C-alpha cells in the first residue's frame, strides 16, 4: 500500500510540474489571444457606451490602430510629412485614438511582410497597398480587405477618384490610390549641354544621345537592376511602344502574347541597349537608391524612372551635383514600326492604402477619419506641390488653380506637360498580370540583362507562365 502511495505522490509531482510548464505556455498564448479578443470585445463595450447617452465622454478609452507605411528615408520625407498631418488630424477627431506608425521599406512590405501577414491573417489595420492582380485584388478575393464602398459613399468620395481600376473587384472598392505616376526619362541638362545633345524626340536621337554620352565616359542611363522592378519599368514602356498600349492589358485576357514578335522586339531593344553599354555597369548589383545617387552625382546622363522621383531632385538632403533646375524630363520617343498610339505614356494609380477587413466599430471610425483627412483636395495639392505625386482624385477648380499658381518645380511641370500631350495612358503590367507571371518577369528580365536568356527565350518563358496562370 505504502509503495503505491509513494508512486502516486511521484506521479502527482511530475504531472503538476508538467502542467505548470504547460500552464505557463497557455497563459502566454492566452494573454495574447485575449488582447485580440479585447480589441474586439472591449471596444464593443466602449461603443455600446458611446452610442448611448454618454456619447460625449471627456477622456475616451485610449486605443491604438496600427498603420503600415513605406515613407522611410530622405527621399520620401515629404510624403511622410503629409501622412503625419493626416494622422494628426484623424487622431484629433476620434477621441482616444492613437495611430501606431510602422515604417517598412517599400519592397520588403509589398513582397515579404504584407503577404506573410495576409497569409497569417494579421495584417495591420491600415497599410500601404498596391493595386492589381498580384496585390489588392488577390487579397480582396481572399476576403482580407475592407470593402470601402459604403465609407466612400458616406464621405462623398465615391466619384472623386480618377482611376480606381486596380483596386476594384466586382464593383467594390478595396483600396484608395494616394497618387498617380508616370514613367519616363529624366536627363541631366548640364551634361546634355556640355556634349551638345538635343532632347531626343525619336528613338535614333535617343540612341545617338546615349552613344555621345558613352563616348565621353558618362553612363548613358543610370540603372539599378538588383531589384528587378526597376528595369521592368523601362521594359514595360518599351512593350507599350512596340506592341501597343493595349497589349499591356492583353496578356491577362489572351489577346496579346509575351512571345509575339512585337513584345520580343521590345525585349530585343532592351537587350541591345544592355549590350551597347547604355546602362550602369554591373547594374545587377546596383540598388534603386544607388541608381538615383549616380544620376544626382552627375555620373549618368539619363535615368528611366517614375515621376515620384522628381521630389528627390528638390530635396536638399539628397542633391549633389545637380538640382531640379538641371533635370529635364521626356517621354519615351516613338519607335519605328511600333503598334498603337506612339504618344501614349505609362500612367499608374496603383499605390495607396488598404484596410484590414478585421475591424471593430472603433477602428472603423479611425479608418473613416483617416480616409477623410488624407484623401481630400488640399492633401492632393500638397502631394503634387511638395512631393511631385500626381493627383489621384478629381480636383475642384479652386484646387486646380492653386496648383496652377503655386507649382514651381520645373521637373514636375515638365512631367505634367508631357502627360497632357500624351494621347493615352497605359498601366504597368505588374498591376494587370497575376503574381506568378509577374514573378517570372522579374526573373526573366534579370536573365536577359545577364545574357543568360535571349529575348525570344524570355518571351517564350513568360508566355508559358501566362498561359499556366490563365488556366488556373
Amino acid at each position: 500500500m505504502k509503495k503505491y502511495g509513494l508512486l502516486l505522490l511521484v506521479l502527482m509531482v511530475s504531472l503538476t510540474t508538467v502542467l505548470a510548464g504547460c500552464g505557463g505556455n497557455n497563459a502566454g498564448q492566452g494573454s495574447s489571444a485575449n488582447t485580440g479578443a479585447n480589441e474586439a470585445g472591449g471596444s464593443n463595450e466602449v461603443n455600446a457606451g458611446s452610442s448611448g447617452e454618454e456619447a460625449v465622454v471627456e477622456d475616451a478609452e485610449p486605443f491604438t490602430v496600427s498603420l503600415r507605411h513605406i515613407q522611410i528615408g530622405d527621399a520620401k520625407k515629404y510624403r511622410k510629412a503629409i501622412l503625419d498631418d493626416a494622422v494628426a488630424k484623424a487622431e484629433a477627431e476620434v477621441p482616444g485614438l492613437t495611430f501606431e506608425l510602422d515604417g517598412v521599406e517599400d519592397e520588403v512590405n509589398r513582397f515579404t511582410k504584407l503577404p506573410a501577414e495576409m497569409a497569417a491573417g494579421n495584417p495591420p489595420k491600415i497599410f500601404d497597398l498596391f493595386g492589381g492582380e498580384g496585390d489588392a485584388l488577390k487579397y480582396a478575393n481572399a476576403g482580407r480587405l475592407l470593402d470601402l464602398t459604403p465609407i466612400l459613399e458616406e464621405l462623398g468620395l465615391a466619384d472623386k477618384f480618377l482611376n480606381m481600376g486596380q483596386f476594384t473587384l466586382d464593383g467594390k472598392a478595396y483600396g484608395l490610390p494616394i497618387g498617380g505616376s508616370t514613367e519616363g526619362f529624366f536627363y541631366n541638362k548640364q551634361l546634355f549641354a556640355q556634349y551638345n545633345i538635343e532632347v531626343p524626340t525619336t528613338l535614333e536621337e535617343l540612341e545617338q544621345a546615349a552613344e555621345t554620352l558613352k563616348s565621353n565616359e558618362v553612363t548613358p542611363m543610370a540603372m539599378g537592376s538588383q531589384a528587378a522592378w526597376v528595369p521592368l519599368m523601362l521594359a514595360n514602356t518599351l512593350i507599350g511602344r512596340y506592341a501597343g498600349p493595349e497589349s499591356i492589358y492583353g496578356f491577362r485576357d489572351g489577346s496579346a502574347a509575351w512571345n509575339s514578335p512585337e513584345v520580343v522586339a521590345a525585349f530585343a531593344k532592351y537587350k541591345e541597349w544592355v549590350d551597347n553599354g547604355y546602362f550602369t555597369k554591373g547594374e545587377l548589383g546596383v540598388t534603386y537608391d544607388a541608381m538615383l545617387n549616380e544620376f544626382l552625382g552627375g555620373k549618368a546622363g539619363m535615368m528611366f524612372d517614375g515621376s515620384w522621383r522628381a521630389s528627390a531632385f528638390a530635396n536638399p538632403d539628397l542633391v549633389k551635383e545637380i538640382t531640379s533646375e538641371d533635370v529635364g524630363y521626356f517621354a519615351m520617343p516613338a519607335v519605328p514600326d511600333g503598334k498603337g498610339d506612339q504618344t501614349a505614356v505609362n500612367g499608374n494609380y496603383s499605390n495607396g492604402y488598404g484596410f484590414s477587413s478585421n475591424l471593430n466599430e472603433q477602428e472603423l471610425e479611425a479608418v473613416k477619419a483617416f480616409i477623410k483627412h488624407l484623401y481630400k483636395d488640399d492633401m492632393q495639392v500638397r502631394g503634387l506641390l511638395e512631393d511631385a505625386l500626381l493627383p489621384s482624385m478629381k480636383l475642384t477648380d479652386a484646387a486646380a488653380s492653386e496648383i496652377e499658381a503655386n507649382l514651381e518645380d520645373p521637373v514636375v511641370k515638365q512631367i505634367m506637360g508631357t502627360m497632357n500631350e500624351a494621347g493615352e495612358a497605359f498601366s504597368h503590367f505588374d498591376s494587370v498580370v497575376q503574381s506568378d507571371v509577374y514573378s517570372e518577369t522579374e526573373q526573366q528580365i534579370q536573365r536577359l540583362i545577364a545574357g543568360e536568356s535571349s529575348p525570344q527565350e524570355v518571351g517564350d518563358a513568360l508566355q508559358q507562365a501566362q498561359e499556366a496562370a490563365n488556366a488556373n
Partner: protein
Amino acid sequence: MRSSLRNPYIYILFVVPTLGLYALFFFYPMLTSVGYGFTDWNGLEETNFIGFANFQQAFADSDFWNAVRNNMVFILFSVGVQVPLIVFFAILISQVRRFQSFYKTTVFVPSILSTAVIGILWGFMYDPEVGIINQFLGLFGVETIYWLADSNWALPAVLVTNAWQWMGFYIVLVLAAILSLPKEINEAASIDGAGGFRRAWYITVPLIKPIISVIVMLSIAGAMRVVDIVLVMTKGGPVGATDVMASYMVNRAIRYGDYGYGTALSIMIFAIALILTALYQLTFGKMRERVEF
C-alpha cells in the same frame, strides 16, 4: 519502493511528459508541414491536396537545382579549402610564443560580429568603384570587377566572406586541441631531428584528427544552412548565381506566397541533408575514434 522501480511501466510514466512536449513541438509541426508539402496552400485561398505535383515541380525546377549546386559548392569550399586553412593557421598560431592570445582574439573577432554587419562591410569592400579590393587590384592594372553583380564572381565573393566570418571560431577550437597535446611527443620528435613541417604533419595533425572530424561536421552543417550572408549580400542574385537552398525556399514561400511549394522544397532539403549526413558518417565520421596518447 524497490519493486516499483523494477516495474518498467514506471519508467515509461516518467518520460511521458517529455515525450508529450516533444510530440507537440517537434512531431506535430513536422507532420503538418509534411502534409502542407502535398497541397497548393498559398495562405489566402482554399487549400487543395495536389499529391506529388509540388515534388514533380521541384524535380523539374532548374532554379532549385541550381541552388542545390551552389550549396554543394559551399560545402566543398568549407571542407576542401576552409578546413585545411583552419588547421594551418591553428598550427601557426600554436607555434607563436609572444602575443599568442592577441592572435587568438584577432582571429576570433569576425565570428562575434553579426552577419548583417559583415555582409554590409564586405559589400563596401567589393564595391566596384570605391571598394578597397578593386582599388588594390587596380594597382596591378586589373580591370574593374563587378564582384557582386557578375554571375561568375558573386559566389566566390560570398564564399570568401562566409569563410572569413567563421574560420576564426574553428581556429580557436583547433588551437585548444593542439595546446592540450602532451608536449613530450613533440619534444621527442624534435630531438629525433624532425623539422616543423614533419612534426605538424606526422604528429600534430594525426593527434587532432577527432577535432578535425568535428570541424568538418560543423562546416558541413554550417554550409547546409547558410542563408543569412546570402540574403544580406546578394539576395541570391545576380540571376540566382548565389541562391542557396534555404534562400530559394524562403523566396518561393514568402515572396511568391507559394507556401505549399516552399514546404515541399523544405522536405527535399531535409532529404538532401539526410543523404549528406550518411555520406559524412561513412567518410569523416570514422575518424572520430579516440586517440590515445
